């Protein structure tokens, strides 16, 4: 009962606040295009903001705090609903009503959830003044605070801040990677350059994240850097680089992938085989065929799959492997021929399957 009373009171405040805010957000302005003269656009918001403040100050002193909380709540809700010029008006309102500085203060709170919420709200307020404070939060002891800070910085400063954030971080949980990847991938090809820059980070986890992002973006501009870089990093990042090169599908990767097909590390050979499968290049068939014949079962399976994706030459190689007299090789070849929809009992081309 008590909870529902609080809720209905809050709803009634929010409804009145929303009405007052709508006047500010949607009134016509003389300088309508904020891209032409941003300063003039901002300046003309002042009378509207004063009017909004007067409207909110009508309430007796006792209720002003509730109205102020309601204003902040409604404005934060609106951040996900408005874009463009209206979003700029909202950002200006956050500053005018001192919510930005109030929020910055919360970043020093000793409760991690208050700091995290402060970072999150700073991102929603989109105010550049919060950036130095958010940067400090990248060193916070709590992962959620660091994530919210990095996310807010990305939201405020855009693609240009990707490299500085990644160079500053000393580690990243997968959750942080999942969160940041969403924003980074939204920038598409513009994110390639900062991600390449982040490969210089001294922390393998950051390098790995940058490589993975480049792979998902699939922009071939990053191929030369990755090829150059792959020999100078730790196995975990090498593994991600191989996968990324496969996703990019650029023929310049072939010599490097061929080299890794002969690596002493079983996992790298498996990754290289998968990458070769993604490239579908006939020029790797010979190496893959020998992996299918000579390697461990795990690598055989990766090589078999890659061969089934390497066009006519790959299929020929798999058919040839059926008759080599090795039961494991035959089983793997049969599996992938079957998966590729090849009828192994059909008569073969004249001259047989000669590699």
């Amino acid at each position, binding site marked *: 009962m008590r909870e529902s009373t609080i809720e209905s009171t809050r709803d009634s405040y929010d409804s009145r606040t929303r009405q007052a805010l709508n006047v500010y957000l949607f009134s016509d302005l003389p300088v309508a295009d904020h891209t032409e003269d941003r300063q003039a656009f901002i300046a003309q918001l002042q009378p509207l903001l004063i009017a909004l403040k007067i409207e909110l100050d009508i309430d007796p002193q006792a209720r002003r705090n509730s109205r102020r909380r309601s204003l902040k709540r409604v404005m934060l809700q609106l951040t996900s609903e408005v874009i463009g010029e209206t979003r700029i008006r909202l950002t200006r309102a956050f500053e005018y009503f001192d919510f930005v500085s109030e929020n910055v203060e919360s970043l020093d709170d000793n409760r991690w*959830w208050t700091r*995290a*919420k402060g970072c*999150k709200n700073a991102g929603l307020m989109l105010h550049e003044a919060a950036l130095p404070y958010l940067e400090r939060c990248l060193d916070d002891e709590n*992962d*959620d605070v660091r*994530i*919210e800070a990095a996310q807010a910085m990305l939201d405020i400063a855009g693609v240009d801040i990707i490299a500085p954030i990644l160079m500053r971080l000393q580690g990243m*949980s*997968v*959750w942080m*990677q*999942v*969160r940041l*990847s*969403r924003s980074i991938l939204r920038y598409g090809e513009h994110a390639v350059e900062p991600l390449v820059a982040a490969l210089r980070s001294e922390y393998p986890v950051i390098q790995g994240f940058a490589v*993975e992002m480049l792979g*998902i973006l699939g922009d071939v501009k990053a191929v030369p850097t990755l090829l150059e870089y792959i020999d100078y990093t730790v196995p975990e990042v090498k593994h991600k680089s191989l996968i990324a090169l496969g996703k990019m599908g650029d023929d310049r990767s072939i010599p490097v992938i061929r080299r890794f097909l002969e690596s002493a590390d079983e996992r790298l050979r498996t990754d290289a085989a998968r990458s070769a499968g993604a490239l579908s290049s006939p020029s790797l068939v010979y190496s893959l065929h020998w992996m299918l014949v000579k390697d461990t*079962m*795990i690598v055989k*399976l990766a090589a078999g799959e890659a061969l089934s994706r390497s066009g006519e030459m790959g299929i020929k190689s798999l058919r040839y492997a059926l008759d080599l007299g090795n039961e*494991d090789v035959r*089983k*793997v070849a*049969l*599996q992938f*021929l*079957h*998966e590729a929809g090849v009828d192994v009992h059909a008569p073969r081309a004249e001259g047989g399957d000669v590699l």
Partner: protein
Amino acid sequence: MMDFMLWFSDSIVNTYAAFIIGFFIFVNVFYFSMYTISFGAILTYLRRHMFCDYRVIMQSELTPAVSILAPAYNEAATCIESVNSLMKLNYPTAEVVFINDGSKDDTLNVIIREFDLVKTERVYVPIIATKPVRGIYVSRKPEYKNLIVVDKQNGGKADALNVGINVSRYELICAIDADSILEDDALIKVVKPFLDDSRVVAVGGIVRIANGCKIERGRVTDVRLSNKLIPSFQVIEYYRAYLSGRMGWGAINGLLIISGAFGLFKRDLVLTVGGYKHDTVGEDMELVVRMHRHCLENDIPYRVEFVPDPVCWTEAPETLKVLGRQRNRWHRGLLDTLLIHKKMLFNKRYKVLGMVSVPYFVFIELLGPVIEAMGYIAVGFGYYLGIVNLEIFLLFFIVSVIYGVMFSVSSVILEEISFHRYPRARDLVKLLLLAVVENFGYRQITVWWRIKAFWDYARGVQSWGVMTRVGFKK
């Protein structure tokens, strides 16, 4: 002589009564500490929840892929619904590996017909040794491209799970009971600790009782408490075990049990430790303990976590007979696991596990029922014969029953303020009432089942016992 005998029996009974009371006080203090830790952990979980948008996990290419392993034996009646329910889970990349463990009924044919399965030439690599695999099937329908059905010779649940582990392709494996129902977001929620911390090797999710709930198309649509007494008592027991117990154990990295009905594991580590042990009835607990041991013995940083929110609904036994068999099996599994890993008891090398978790499971969970039963007998008869005085009798009653009531009621309250799964006020009142009532009769029956398990274990009983299920009401 007669006087001496009376004095002697009087001393023995009173000393034992004092021991029992001391034991109960110790147990209750321990439970209270665990409850406090659980409360803090749930609070932290809920706070972290505010900063987690699960849609991000759903949409990300970085989310680790999961293989869901569903072993089945004679599940012809329920297998279609189970598979359909698993295929509809919200998760970006997942495969369902349904393992037919040599069912004697029509399970395989039913599933082949329903999902238009075709036998493949897929290579089976027995990384963990198992009973022979007779065939691996995939569907011709594109909407079931992530379904793999394995037909194998009967070898028990652990063997079926090991086949599933061998066949699975992804880095995380989720072991579930084929007859359980996972909530749509359960997988996303249980994977979150793996994203938060790279040291996490296993995560258990909460199992709740579906009896009484409304179930439509493999989903729980209306959460209600069963009208029957036995499943309702089990709701309280599950609250105690999961919210007040496992949550706390997870927080101190001392969690020994991840329910076979719903757990997520790192495949690499499961393979390294050799998969599920098939000659024990407590294979789920034994695997978790072996993973702990492996990491601790090899100085591998690791964590085993529990999350209270992703829900797996299961059908609880509705009769005392079936429930008795289940509890007997659980206790035999516990005894077997603790005997296999007895080396860990009070062994500093195993840190929290050796010094807290294993001793707790040995002295409170395993031997607790024996001590409790002897307490009832000694204090009850002692008071009846006039050997035990009223003060001792009342003190025993307070520490054994009143504390039990308090603990159960606290667990119900913890659930109510955190997840509030039973929306009806009537259900809450009923739960609070049952939290009191269960201490008079029901608790003592469970004590008897667990004592009987020692006898069965000594006789070499290895069976699971027939688990008669009523089936989820549609």
